[in-house]
């Protein structure tokens, strides 16, 4: 059986390898699918993740649904066969039920659970998707996403010495020309058309001094009613609102502090995680939250040094008897703050329309107090804009 031996070996060609990223298009399409899937679940994700005041590079694990490839496969009750190391006994545990890969057998071996996975995205991407979801206009989106570029230093005059990168070439050349003119004015020293090199004295460096702009501090007080049922949708709305506010303040001030105050009948200062975690049930004294805010302002963030921004989210269900106290405290905060906002989150269809703080706060008549009603996520952006229009610190 001797056949003509005609094997072909094609050598490796790096140029082919570089050109052959054949899966690029399909990978892109796959990523688009992931992104769509995230976008569909953005409310759940934002409601569960701490995003306010976190680094934009923070990586968040997001569960992916909807891009699984399904087939008809066998379910849990199907037995399988494996190979042991020689000491197998009935009753031994050999693995976990779901997610256990069977013997490799091309594509058909897909078991449920294996395909369900998480992806990492950065906070930056997540907020980008959130902005899309809230339908923020492009221009505004950009404004909020850009990290505030503060010049911490400015140019001030020139020096003879300095580091190479600050060499001012134009002035250096000019200094040389000047020197040459001066030297050739004197016939004794005239170099004629000979070489006239640069001299150390010609070198001119830009001088940079640290900017001593007046320190600009701001504090954002996030006050939230954690009494009733803050469900996913309410949390999402509140969190995205607080997030927008924080991002906006960040673009205007260099040093921004964040305070979270959770209240039901009593108020506590909490971390962001606690702030959005499941609240206690019970009644509500809005005044308690405001009082806590006033205490914190008095203690740590005196209005003469800090620009105070306060925002309160609630479903508006306050104890009748507390209303006068709440109104009074709100007035006090409004006097101290650049901006004080009250947002009432009532997803469409929720009851208790009758008990709304909006009616009470209508009596509060200061120009930097603003109430907004958020019924659905499309309301977030318009109400946010309405709120900012009242900023006392606005230029």
């Amino acid at each position, binding site marked *: 059986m001797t056949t003509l031996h005609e094997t072909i070996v094609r050598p490796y060609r790096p140029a082919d390898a570089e050109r052959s990223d054949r899966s690029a298009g399909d990978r892109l399409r796959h990523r688009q699918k992931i992104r769509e899937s995230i976008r569909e679940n953005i409310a759940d994700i934002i409601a569960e993740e701490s995003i306010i005041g976190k680094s934009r590079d923070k990586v968040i694990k997001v569960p992916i649904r909807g891009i699984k490839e399904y087939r008809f496969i066998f379910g849990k009750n199907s037995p399988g066969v*494996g190979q042991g190391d020689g000491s197998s006994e009935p009753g031994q545990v050999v693995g976990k039920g779901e997610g256990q890969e069977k013997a490799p057998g091309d594509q058909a071996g897909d078991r449920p659970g294996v395909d369900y996975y998480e992806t990492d995205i950065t906070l930056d991407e997540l907020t980008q998707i959130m902005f899309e979801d809230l339908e923020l206009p492009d221009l505004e989106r950009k404004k909020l996403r850009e990290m505030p570029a503060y010049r911490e230093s400015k140019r001030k005059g020139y020096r003879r010495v300095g580091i190479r990168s600050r060499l001012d070439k134009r002035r250096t050349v000019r200094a040389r020309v000047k020197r040459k003119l001066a030297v050739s004015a004197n016939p004794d020293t005239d170099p004629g058309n000979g070489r006239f090199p640069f001299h150390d004295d010609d070198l001119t460096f830009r001088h940079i001094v640290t900017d001593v702009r007046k320190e600009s501090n701001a504090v954002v007080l996030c006050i939230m009613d954690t009494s009733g049922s803050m469900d996913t949708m309410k949390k999402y709305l509140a969190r995205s609102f607080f997030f927008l506010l924080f991002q906006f303040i960040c673009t205007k001030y260099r040093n921004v502090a964040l305070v979270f105050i959770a209240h039901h009948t009593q108020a506590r200062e909490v971390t962001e995680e606690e702030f959005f975690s499941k609240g206690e049930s019970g009644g509500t004294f809005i005044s308690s939250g405001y009082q806590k805010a006033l205490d914190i302002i008095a203690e740590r963030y005196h209005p003469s040094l800090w620009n105070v921004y306060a925002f309160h989210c609630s479903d508006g269900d306050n104890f009748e008897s507390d209303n006068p106290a709440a109104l009074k405290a709100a007035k006090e905060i409004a006097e101290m703050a650049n901006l004080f906002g009250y947002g009432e989150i009532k997803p469409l269809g929720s009851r208790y329309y009758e008990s709304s703080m909006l009616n009470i706060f209508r009596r509060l008549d200061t120009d930097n107090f603003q109430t907004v009603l958020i019924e659905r996520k499309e309301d977030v952006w318009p109400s946010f804009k309405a709120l900012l229009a009242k900023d006392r610190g606005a230029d």
Partner: protein
Amino acid sequence: MPDYTIEDIEHWDSRVHEVVARFGLDTYPQEFDICDSNQMLGYMAYSGMPSHYPHWSYGKAYEKLKTLYDHGVTGLPYEMVINSNPSLAYLMRENSLCLQILTIAHVYAHNDFFKNNFTFRTTRPEFTMGTFKTHADRIRAYSEDPSIGIDKVEPVLDAAHALSLQCRRNIVVRKLTRTEQEARSIEAARPAPDPFWQIHKRAEHTAPELHKVPLVPEEDLLLFIAEHNPYMSAWEKDLLTVVHEEAQYFIPQIETKIMNEGWASYWHKRILEALDLPEAIHLEFLVRHNQVVRPTPGSINPYHLGLRIWERIAGEAEGRTTEEGGNGVQSTNHDRESMFQVRETDRDVSFLRRFLSEELARDLDLFQYEPKGEDLVISHVANKEGWPRIKESLLRTVGMGQVPVIKIEDADFGNNRTLYLRHDHDGRDIHLESAEKTLGYVHRLWGKEVALETIVSGKRTLFCVSEHGFSAKSLK
């Protein structure tokens, strides 16, 4: 940098080929492409094909492979060989010379298997590359067609992929035409000849329902839908045909995984032993060979299981010494002949049924596991009582046995154009969430209500997907 040159590869290839010919392996002409690891990942994502139609799932496969590879969870296969004539295989340039020789030998054995095993007869290997290329061109054309576009192509492909393995398993058996089916059912309905017809009451004659579609339950879901959904446009039908044809091409490989890998491992060992390798290469070869064929505890390594069975067929496991002659040809010619016969006429199911003995199973320490609560627990080990059970479940799960058999019973159920499917329940329940989602895909393609009859925890159950969504009810 690799420790070899192209000339080295060519040199060793011709030496391997000499031995291959001497052993009597019968191969297509062979071609090797040398590629790097990134290209290899690319080939793997597209089932090895140099040209393949685009779909996001391949991008997903690539990302998954790449992540696993980059994190060192899995390595890359040493070899990837395509069933085509001439056969095409990839050699990864990062591999050592020893691995290249091992791979070349392994590839020739696969090549022989593709050429000779009966399951591959339907795959038309001389057209493989061209077919895949034409498929790719057609699907790209649809995606770029302004009146169709990727957003319409993709949902059809998603659905078709989900159903691609719902087809006839033994492709070598010819499918009857409608006329033949009708003739058969008329034949079957005819009463048996009765020698005492004069004294008997004549048997009741029930006419066969010849108008029924399909006449006999139909397994080729994609083809049936393409033929019988009158509202499907030509390009949609074409997409289904493409996906169906690709699945048909790969089914023989699914059906012979254990045999094929065992065969290649058996021969690469014999070939390399006959090559008289330099000692350094020979030692590396022993290490690599053992890495490939070592058992993976808890599951089945097809290389290992296949190799052990082939060795048994070759008569070596019985303690007979391998009398390698100076020319490398084994003297037990009878065994060799029967090996060649088996590689021609069997596939995994029959291969295991015929040659996996209780003794070998005990030696391999095979066991059967079953889910018990959260865990998978060993229920049987290979002893006198356990072995028949283990064999039964093993035979059920190899090859296409991993895919539930689902047949179309009626395309006009309730005179409503409802597509009625029945799952041939063999003791294994179908996975419910996947069934619900996949049935949704059937509905997408069929365009009218679809129903699937199956058994869930011993109860006959009917799943339905219509435009109102999914529903399940139990049948009496």
